[in-house]
Each structure stands twice: as structure tokens, then as C-alpha cells.
């Protein structure tokens, strides 16, 4: 059993500095002892100089977690006190709480993910925790696209124009065709040729592929399109 001073020292060094160095369950135990001693969360918060008693309340909630979840904290597998606070708020059976805590470790869920899963699981009582996790993870997916602005040197732009005119097409279509010879057309979402630049919008796979080709050819990404077009028109003229 720690003394009042030791409990205070733990709270000041872990909560006031907002750097949780100690096992969250141990911090929670100090919160509980001091709350009993001082009578309220507000009094504990005042004593250690916190603006609001919320953090004390959140920590103390960890003590209401099922033993299996507490064990994950004690083994150092679970670190986020906020995640535990959200699990403690979930009005579900202990098995569900345990399942969510294990998913935090295995699937690297963030405290924000856990908050969203708990909020959703509270509403969708008939869904399993696994289903709630899947739905929340899916709803957080973002489609990544890249708009790459590349240089089109004057000389290359003139070559492109001449060749396009010779083939009876436009510089844009010809440039797109040349780039399309080394990249998957499906990855190129949009393409534009301006006076001194080429803009290509690609999906993530396309961007990674482009980076790889540029690296292999030892060119900067901003020179990628100009370089390919010039090389192609110089060495392998169409028609």
C-alpha cells in the first residue's frame, strides 16, 4: 500500500505531465485511493493542479475492467488508458470487452478507433464485437489519390507538339499514350498537359509504381514524365 505522498507523486508525474510512464492500472489505483481520501474527483484534480477532474474519472474506470483486460495492461500489451476507459463504458458482457481489448493488441486499434467501436456497439446491440470492428475500420478507410505536377521542359513540349501534329493527334493524348506504355492505364485517373507542366492524378498503386520506376531510372519524380516522353520521342519515334 502506497502512502498519500507516493500516490500524489504518481498522479503528478503521470497525469499532470500527460506522459503516462507507469502501468495505467497502478495509476488508477492511486486515483481511487486519493478519491476516497479527498472525497471527490474534483478535490483530487485540484490537489494535483488539473483543470478538470475528467482524467481522474477516466483512470479510475480502468479498475472496473474484467480481469483478463487488466492483465493485458499488467503485461504491458495494452498501454492506452483512454482505450481502456472506453471499454469500461461499454455496456456489454465481459467476453465482449475482452475481445475488444485483444483486438487493440492484435489489430493495432487506436484509442479513437476504440471510442468509435464502443459508440457503435452500444447502438447495434445485436452485432458481435467483431462485426462492429469490421464496420468501423471500413468506414475509416480513405481512398488515397495523388496529383503529381511534373515539369515539361520547353524543348520536350515542342517535340511533343511536333510529333502529335505529325500523327494527327493532340499533345495530351500522345503524352498520355507514352506514359501509359510504362504504367497501367487504369492507375491513371486523369491527365493534363499545360504549357510547362504535366499533371497526372493517380491512385495509390499508380503512385507507388511511378516512384519505383523513377527511382530505378534515377530521376526525380518531378522530371519523370518529361524524361520518359523525351527519351521515347528521341529514340523510338512513332510511326
Amino acid at each position, binding site marked *: 500500500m502506497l502512502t498519500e505522498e507516493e500516490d500524489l507523486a504518481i498522479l503528478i508525474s503521470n497525469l499532470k505531465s500527460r506522459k503516462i510512464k507507469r502501468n495505467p492500472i497502478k495509476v488508477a489505483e492511486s486515483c481511487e485511493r486519493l*478519491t*476516497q481520501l479527498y*472525497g*471527490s*474527483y*474534483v478535490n483530487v*484534480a485540484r490537489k494535483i493542479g488539473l*483543470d*478538470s*477532474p*475528467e482524467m481522474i*474519472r477516466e483512470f479510475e474506470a480502468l479498475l*472496473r475492467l474484467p480481469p483478463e483486460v487488466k492483465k493485458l495492461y499488467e503485461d504491458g500489451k495494452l498501454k492506452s488508458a483512454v482505450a481502456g476507459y472506453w471499454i469500461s463504458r461499454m455496456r456489454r458482457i465481459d467476453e465482449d470487452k475482452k475481445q475488444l481489448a485483444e483486438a487493440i493488441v492484435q489489430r493495432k486499434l487506436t484509442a479513437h478507433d476504440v*471510442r*468509435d467501436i464502443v*459508440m*457503435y456497439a452500444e*447502438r*447495434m446491440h445485436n452485432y458481435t464485437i467483431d462485426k462492429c470492428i469490421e*464496420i*468501423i475500420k471500413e*468506414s*475509416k*478507410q*480513405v*481512398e*488515397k*489519390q*495523388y*496529383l*503529381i*505536377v*511534373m*515539369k515539361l521542359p520547353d524543348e520536350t513540349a515542342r517535340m511533343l507538339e511536333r510529333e502529335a501534329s505529325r500523327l494527327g493527334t493532340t499533345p495530351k493524348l500522345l503524352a498520355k499514350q507514352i506514359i501509359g506504355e510504362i504504367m497501367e492505364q487504369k492507375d491513371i485517373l486523369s491527365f493534363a498537359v499545360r504549357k510547362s*507542366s504535366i499533371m497526372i*492524378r493517380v491512385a495509390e498503386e499508380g*503512385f507507388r509504381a511511378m516512384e519505383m520506376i523513377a527511382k530505378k531510372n534515377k530521376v526525380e*519524380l*518531378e522530371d519523370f514524365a518529361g524524361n520518359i516522353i523525351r527519351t521515347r520521342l528521341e529514340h523510338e519515334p512513332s510511326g
Partner: protein
Amino acid sequence: MLKTIGYRKIPIEKIEIASDYVRTRIEEDEWLETSIGRLGLIQPIVVFPKDDKYQLVVGRRRLEALRKQGEKEVEARIIEPVDSMIAKIVSIVENERRRSLPFRDTVTVCQYLYQKYKGSIEKVMEDLHMSRNDVLKYLKFVLVPEEIVQMVEEGKLKEREAEASTLAGLSETTFDKNKAITIAEAIAKGELTPEQTRRLPDISTENPKASPSEIISVARTRPIRLTLVLPKRIVEALDRAADEYRMDRKDMAKTALDSWLSSMGYY
């Protein structure tokens, strides 16, 4: 300032709870019951005399725990009578082991103090022991329709969901109450995840004429995050401009893009 008349034991049966007492729902609280059973009452409850009885100001959960344990009397701090608004403020601040308090009361008290202190958020924070973000969160609720407040009180909707659905009904100049309510109902039915709910205000701002079902449908679509990859000369120019306008590079890029698109007539 609350004026104390005295401290003494009073009969539990003589304590009345005002109909507008802030803690309107009492949940099972094993921790408090065990603690009171083990240690006794650490802090007295707060009441004021009313007719030949007492009206409770602070300590409803403690009172219920004692009543459950068959106690007949309780140690009380007796204060001079206060009006219901002051009682609410005291209750919010002093409620020991504070759990989330009823939404409507917290909004009302925040608004009341904000007006009383002529717009000083700092003073509201001090009075209620709340963080700045919490005070601002509650002040936003001036617009929330009664129907949505009720959904929050019935536990069908979280406060932040009430906020998102209200903002989704708000355009620059008008507030479409029905749109907000329809969206709130969809959230309550589980049609949107918390992440999708957070997107609602932005979607609504970008599509002010969209119907509730269109807004919900966009919120459920996977969003696109577009990364701009620029040549060094443009990045350097952006940095020079950002320096001159005292903005960071990202904000400068957004401003430049916005200004170019608008000058070219794209919107």
C-alpha cells in the same frame, strides 16, 4: 456564495428532490454503495429548508445509496434557500465522482453563465471546472432542436451526434430544422458510423441544397484524400509566399489553389 446555516443529521424521508434536479436518472452505483458501507458518508449532502422539509441540492446518488442500505438519517450541510439555476450550477460543480450529467441542464447552465459573464468563456470554465473545449461544445447547442435534445436525453443520440446533425441542418444563412432531425434519426438507427457522422457538417456545407438522404449517402461513401506532389520550384515559391503571408506551407497551398480555381471560374 452559498450561505451555510449549519451541519446536522436530518431524516432521509424529509428530503425532497426538485423535479428539475440535474441528475434525473440514477444508475446503479456499486462503488458508492460499497464505499459508503465501508467508510460511511465522507462528505455530507447539501440541502436547504423548504416548508417543513428539505430540498436536495447536491448528493442524490449518496442519498439513494444510503436509502438502499436502510439508513434513516443522513449528515447534511444545510444552506440558505437558492433558486433552481444556482442549485443546478452547484450540483454540476460539486457532484462528487461526477458522471456525465443530463445534457439539457449542462447546456442551460453553460448558456446562463456565458450570458451572465458577458461572453467570458474563462469564467464559465472556472465556475464549472470544465475545459475550454467542453464549454464551447455545450455553447454550440443553442440551436439544437427540442426533438434532438430529447433524443439525447433518452440515450438514443450522443451529444456530439446531436451537434453534427444540427450543424448538418445549418447553411450560411438558414437553419433547416427538419433536415437536422431527419439526419439525427438516421444516426440513432445506426445508419452512420461515428466517423461518417463526423463528416456530416462538411458535406452539408459543401452541398447546401442536398437533401438529408443525399447527405447521408455522401457520408457513407469512402472519401478521397488527394495528395499534391509538386516540383521543387513550386514548393520553394509556396514557402516564400507562406513566409510573406505568415502562413504554413499547407495553408498557403490551399489558399493558392482556391484562388486559382476561383479566378479560372471553376467554382
